[in-house]
């Protein structure tokens, strides 16, 4: 994707970042404006549209009844997909890179799954035979960087907004999806030894390394993923985790407002 950005812009960005500054005047560890709108899709059991600056994503949740996996007969199943639709970026012209969509879906999924956000045992209808399937579809409408966090927040918000459609399946009354933890990811990008938060597309394009840390409300780490070919020092990972906990607490406050 690097060819989308001119050498002059690149050099300018490098100089700015070296001085701890950014194109839009933010501090290196400052987030963009975050807007979360839930329940936006009437046909979905749960949904959220998240604007993180100009990055615009929708997550929709559909639920159905199906069979559990043989090795987890008492647990509901979550299936997560990400569609980097060609609408979102001029670079997706000839089909968006499959491995990018796969990594995005898997990292966002991992935070929710490993953070035990849903009590999947409560999604069991009949052990070994029938459980709730939770289909998560993430649709990227406008891509201005940092999809990991935008999608992670949108998915968390959509889950908090989801109503289990029990009536439609003749399984009693509808009820809210059992959400036990609030997990949010925070993604750091490293450019020329500076570590920055919530990058825009131009910044993402020149980054050397990426680190996503997902935490829960207890401050536990539940998932991490390093990406790109650059490296991190061990001490840098420690700082990122500490920063992630702080930002996670801020985000959880915004998410809690939705709930109520």
């Amino acid at each position, binding site marked *: 994707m690097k060819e989308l950005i001119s050498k002059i812009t690149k050099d300018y960005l490098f100089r700015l970042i070296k001085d701890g500054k950014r194109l839009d005047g933010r501090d290196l560890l400052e987030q963009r404006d975050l807007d979360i709108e839930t329940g936006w899709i009437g046909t979905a059991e749960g949904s959220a549209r998240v604007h993180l600056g100009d990055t*615009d994503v929708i997550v929709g949740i559909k639920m159905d009844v199906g069979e559990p996996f043989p090795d987890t007969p008492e647990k509901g199943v979550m299936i997560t997909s990400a569609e980097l639709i060609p609408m979102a970026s001029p670079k997706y*012209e000839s089909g968006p890179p499959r491995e990018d969509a796969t990594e995005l879906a898997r990292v966002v999924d991992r935070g929710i799954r490993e953070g035990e956000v849903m009590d999947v045992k409560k999604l069991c209808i009949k052990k070994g035979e029938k459980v709730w399937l939770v289909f998560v*579809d993430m649709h990227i409408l*406008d891509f201005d960087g940092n999809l990991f966090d935008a999608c992670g927040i949108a998915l968390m918000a959509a889950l908090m907004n989801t109503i289990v459609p029990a009536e439609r399946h003749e399984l009693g009354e509808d009820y809210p999806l059992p959400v036990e933890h609030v997990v949010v990811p925070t993604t750091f990008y490293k450019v020329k030894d500076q570590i920055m938060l919530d990058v825009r597309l131009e910044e993402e394009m020149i980054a050397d390394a990426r680190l996503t840390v997902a935490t829960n409300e207890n401050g536990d780490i539940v998932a991490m993923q390093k990406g790109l070919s650059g490296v991190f020092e061990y001490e840098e990972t420690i700082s990122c985790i500490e920063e992630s906990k702080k930002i996670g607490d801020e985000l959880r406050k915004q998410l809690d407002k939705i709930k109520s």
Partner: protein
Amino acid sequence: MAEEELKLIDEKGIRNDGRKFDELRPIKIEAGVLKRADGSAFLEWGENKVMAAVYGPREMHPRHAQDPSRAVVQARYNMAAFSVPDRKRPGPDRRSVEISKLMSEALEEIIFVEHFPRASIDIFVEVLEASAGTRCAALTAASVALADAGIPMSDMIASCAAGKIGGKVVLDLGKKEDNFGQADVPMGMVPTTGKITLLQMDGNLTMEEYKQAMELAMDACKEIYKIQRDALKRRYSTSISTFEETNDMEEE
């Protein structure tokens, strides 16, 4: 068209959702809503939610598909997995392939394709929530997105369906009317010239009913055309004011 199993229209001609036979569902359009795309439009039509984005003219890839005499117009109609009551598998199904083809052909008609040899003009429409009439919504939104992108066009296409429910010809079928009605005629036209660029029909109509349906739909297209133009005017005036602000700043 499945046969009618419920009362879709009463003796006074009032439909299930309270509309009269010749009444459209509410339509809202906003142009220029995406940053990356060269042009975009978001449209709500009843419960339908549709996003359209335009990229181009840009170099056509792969090269062997370039046309040395004109731009290739490629529309992609796609339904989000969560846009329908039963989750749709991601990716194009046969229905989407057909609609994408018909949209590409209809839009090619209004674009000055000969201005851009070897180029492609790509229109992406995402159906985010679907409730009958998505292809008309998609075509209507795509026209606005093309205009927003500044693509040279002869005019815009407005699109709408008419159909038959309970033996009566009505405008703009809703979800239940579509499922249990007797005929559906989605069409698209250039309202200023009357030229028909999209036309499909399924169900059962006599010649007389066909004429009634077309007349309803053609009138409605003129109404929709106004909504399209208003969206562009709002977008344009925003741009102008931004432009003026910029000028002000420069003068300081």
